[in-house]
Each structure stands twice: as C-alpha cells, then as structure tokens.
C-alpha cells in the first residue's frame, strides 16, 4: 500500500510527466489555451492511460514474454494503444453518450500522445506489477491534468499581455512553461520510501 502511495505521489509531483519528463508536450502546448479544453483533454488522457496500462501490461506479460518477443515491444504497444483508443471511442459512443460528448473529440489524438506509450515503456523498464502499473498510469494522468490546468490558467492571461513580436506564439508559451516547471523542481527532494 505504501509502495502504491509512493508511486502515486511520485508520478504526480516528483516526476511529473509533462514538466520533468517531457512526455505529452504536444497536447500540453496545443490544447492549453482554455481551461475548459484543458480539462476535457486531461480527462481523456487519464481515462486512456489507466486502460492502456492494464492492457499493455497484459500484452507484455502473456503475449510477448512467453514467446521471447520483447524486441517487438514498440510495435506491439503502439498497435495495442491505437486499437484500444479506437475501441474506447466506439464503446463510449454507444454506451455513454454523455461522457463521449465530453471526451470524444480528444480521444483520436491520444494514440500519438507520448505519455501513453511512454508510461507503457516505463513500467517495463521498472518491472512494475499489474496493480503498480495501473496506479502509475492513473497517477501519470493526474500529473498531466495538474500541469495542463495550471498552465492553461497562465496562458489565458498571456492572451492579453503585450509580447514582443518575435516572442509571440510558441516562444512565450515555452518560457511560461519553464517557469511552471521551476515550481515543480521544488518537489524534487520529496522521496517517499
């Protein structure tokens, strides 16, 4: 239990996916203009991360390992994730139209989100058990949510700021991200054991 808690806090704060591991930068910079879109996107990412962690863990354990196919990990994981995202989209559309309406538009883009494939590769690297990798996926999603929402608040203010010509658009966004990232460095000393 203590170990799971350590994974949870670790993935949310200490090694935040976006701000310290640079996973999921694309949506972080792409959909953080508004807090409402940021919320939808992070909800969808968290949802897919939890399911994909479970499915990729099972794929790795029962399909790749017994046949010595670990070298096909990258191909297998990305295909599983792509299929899964499609599947989740179809199922949500049929069974939970309300949730689909909230998350639907964000789902297709999650396939190429580094965070999803990244966390699958990390659980292999760290040899997590099934429960651990699912918790890790959930925590990574929460960390992503935290970063995205914090950042969208800042970006909403940047909209009205007076910015030099060359800095408009991406440069000022990256510099703002740098400042948010500094605050997260403060958690670096936090070790739970």
């Amino acid at each position, binding site marked *: 239990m203590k170990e799971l808690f350590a994974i949870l806090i670790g993935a949310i704060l200490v090694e935040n996916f976006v701000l310290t591991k640079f996973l999921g930068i694309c949506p972080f910079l792409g959909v953080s203009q508004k807090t409402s879109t940021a919320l939808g996107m992070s909800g969808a990412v968290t949802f897919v991360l939890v399911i994909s962690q479970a499915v990729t863990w099972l794929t790795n354990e029962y399909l790749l390992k017994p046949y010595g196919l670990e070298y096909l990990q990258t*191909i297998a994981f990305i295909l599983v994730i792509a299929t899964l995202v499609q599947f989740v989209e179809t199922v949500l559309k049929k069974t939970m139209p309300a949730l689909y309406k909230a998350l639907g538009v964000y789902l297709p*883009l999650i396939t190429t989100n580094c965070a999803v494939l990244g966390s699958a590769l990390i659980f292999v690297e760290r040899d997590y058990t099934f429960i651990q990798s699912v918790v890790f996926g959930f925590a990574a999603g929460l960390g992503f949510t935290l970063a995205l929402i914090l950042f969208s608040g800042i970006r909403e203010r940047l909209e009205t700021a007076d910015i030099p010509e060359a800095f408009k658009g*991406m440069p000022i966004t990256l*510099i703002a991200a740098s400042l948010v990232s500094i605050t997260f460095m403060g958690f670096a000393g936090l070790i739970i054991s």
Partner: protein
Amino acid sequence: MRLHWYVLCQEVIEMEKKKKSLGSIFLDGIINQNPAFRLLLGNCPSLAITTLAKNGVGMGLAATFVLVGSNLFISLLRKIIPEKVRIPCFIVVIASFTTIVEMIMAAFLPELDKELGIYIPLIVVNCIIFARAEMFAQKNPPVESFMDGIGMGTGFMIAITIIGSVRELLGSGTWMGIPVTVNLFEPATFFILPPGGFLVMGLLIALFNKVFKVKDPRTIEDKEVGCCAVGCQGCANAANGGETV
C-alpha cells in the same frame, strides 16, 4: 470542422507541389520548414534529451534514419495503402523502422542508448514522422520523399544539436564533452534541468523568428501544426472544437 482542416491540408499540399527541385526540398527542411523551430513538431525529444550536444546528434541521426526509411517506404506503398486504413499502416512502417534503430543503437552504441533511454522507442509517436508521411510521402514519388526525409531529418538534427550545445555550454561548461568555459563562468545547473530546456527552446525559437523575419509566427504555426499528423492535427482540431462549444 474536419472539412476545414482538410481544406488547409490541401492548401499546404498544393504549396508543396509547386516546389519541385530536390535541392529546394532539402533546404526547406532545414530553414523554411525546420521541424523543431518552424513547424514546432517533435517537441518531446527536442526538450528531453538535449542536455548534451552529443545526445542531440545521436537523437537527430536516429530520427533521420526512421524518417528517411518511413518516407521512402510509405511513398513506395502509397498506391497500395487504402485511404481509410492509412494511419495504422503508417504506424506499422514507422514502428518497424524505430525497432531497427533501437536494435542498432543497443548493439553498437550502448552508452548513447542508455542515455536516450525510452526516448528512442518514442520516435514512433514523434509528430514529425507522421506529419511527413501524411503531408509529403503519401503524395509524392519515392525520390522526392527520400530527399524530404533527409532534409527534415537534418533540419531536426541541426536544431536539437543547437539546443543541446547551448544547454551543455551553459549548464555543464563543456561542448561535446570538451571543457570550454573553465575559467569564464560557473556552469549553471539550471540549464540541464527540465525548466532550462523549456527556456532555451523558447529563446531559440524567438531568435529564429527574429533572424529569419517570420512575419506572424502564430498563423504559420497554426496552419502547419493543424494539418500535420494525427496527434497534432487532433490537438489543433480539438482546440478548435473546444472553442466552438
């Protein structure tokens, strides 16, 4: 909304059709459409592994290999791959080349492989490669696509090597492992930490905009990112969708 992006994509494809010569395709990748500084694609690796200039070169080479290979193969297969299942097809081609790179790196450059870690397999989800498959290789003959791969890959490599050099110089006081600033200043560890990555990248893009006189970076960025690959297209798409809701 989809139609809107489709129209934009078509526009860019038309634009690309006009520039035919191989030399200009190559140069496009380096300056006009530099993936890291202009198209703003592939941000994950360009921020994550650029703590050392050497890593930039390694990552750039790996990405170039995947880019050239996937561009060439997708271009060769462009008449066979059905429109509707093209994304999974692209994924398989790109993932295969990434796996090849992974194996080569692990076998011949174990040190670099350790340094780059999970960011090597993550080349699969690098927007640049999808973007070029979708925007270029799919519509152009193999020779042009090959050249486009080399141009884009080189542009990406140069960009991330520059980012890596700046961060290494300021953060560790060395360049490619050679001590440079021993008596000049105390290296600031900040630059090799994650926030330093964001800061250096932001400043370099601003500098690039200033030097190459990019008129309105925002419109170009929106357009390009908007019709790139699944990931980024989605991002822009979603951002747009969100606004209309």
